[in-house]
């Protein structure tokens, strides 16, 4: 399984990662999204009903933890991280608007078509965001 992300996701991740309240974010992502079969990630709240490519909102690290928005293309065995927000703390919010949810889906669609995505890998318990074979460490 390959993991990709939108630029939005990386920006949000970098913003949150440096904050003490969200120190578990990186390890939570690695623990939940990596070293698993794609079928294991088919859980959470499916936002696009019975569409073949599930658009998922997943609660991670309990009620007050993080909310992840991601898409799975089962045939390709690809997972696309679209957005993350914490529920609590200085950057916490209870939810995102429906318009934002729809916009994220459109963005990931366009980015897949245009090849405008970042490849996400784990090296030594750290996330690397790679674009055009050039690794960007955050």
């Amino acid at each position: 399984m390959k993991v990709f992300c939108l630029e939005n996701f990386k920006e949000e991740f970098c913003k949150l990662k440096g904050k003490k309240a969200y120190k578990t974010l990186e390890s939570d992502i690695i623990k939940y999204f990596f070293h698993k079969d794609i079928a294991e990630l088919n859980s959470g709240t499916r936002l696009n009903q019975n569409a073949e490519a599930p658009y998922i909102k997943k609660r991670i690290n309990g009620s007050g933890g993080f909310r992840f928005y991601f898409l799975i293309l089962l045939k390709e065995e690809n997972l696309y991280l679209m957005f993350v927000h914490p529920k609590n703390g200085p950057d916490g919010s209870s939810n995102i608007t429906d318009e934002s949810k729809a916009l994220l889906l459109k963005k990931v669609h366009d980015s897949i078509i245009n090849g405008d995505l970042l490849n996400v890998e784990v090296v030594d318990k750290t996330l690397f965001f790679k674009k055009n074979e050039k690794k960007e460490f955050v």
Partner: protein
Amino acid sequence: MECLTAKDRIIDSVKQVRNDSFADKKHFTEEQIVNSFLDNLLDFKKSLSEKSFKINELNKSLESLTWINENMDDDCLRLINDLIAAMKDYHSTLIRHYVNASILKDKGIAKDEIKEFKNSIDDLKEMFIDFESIYFHLPQIPGFKETSKELSLI
């Protein structure tokens, strides 16, 4: 004889008062009060944790409904609408329970259990907001259904 009877009765009364006094003294020792309070507190904590567990299980079961692969016709949507109304009603009831319980939380009692209870209630709220979004709002946003369909074809 009568005098003795009176004496006996008085002695009996003294014994009774002493016994009652002793019993009550024994019942109201600090340790007994603390133990009685702790027993009730443990029962309260246990029942709150059980309630939170029950709500969390319900939330999981509700979440699994979003993975139904059939098309939602009007009858299904009407039922989903009823379900959302029931979830909202249950949420209001639980919030009233939480308000009552939070009086204890303010005094530092059962803080973790009350927090856990509130988290499960918040998850229930998030769930009915998500249901409204999934079944009634997102499908109405122009392009959302089409984008989903196009992604399925990639």
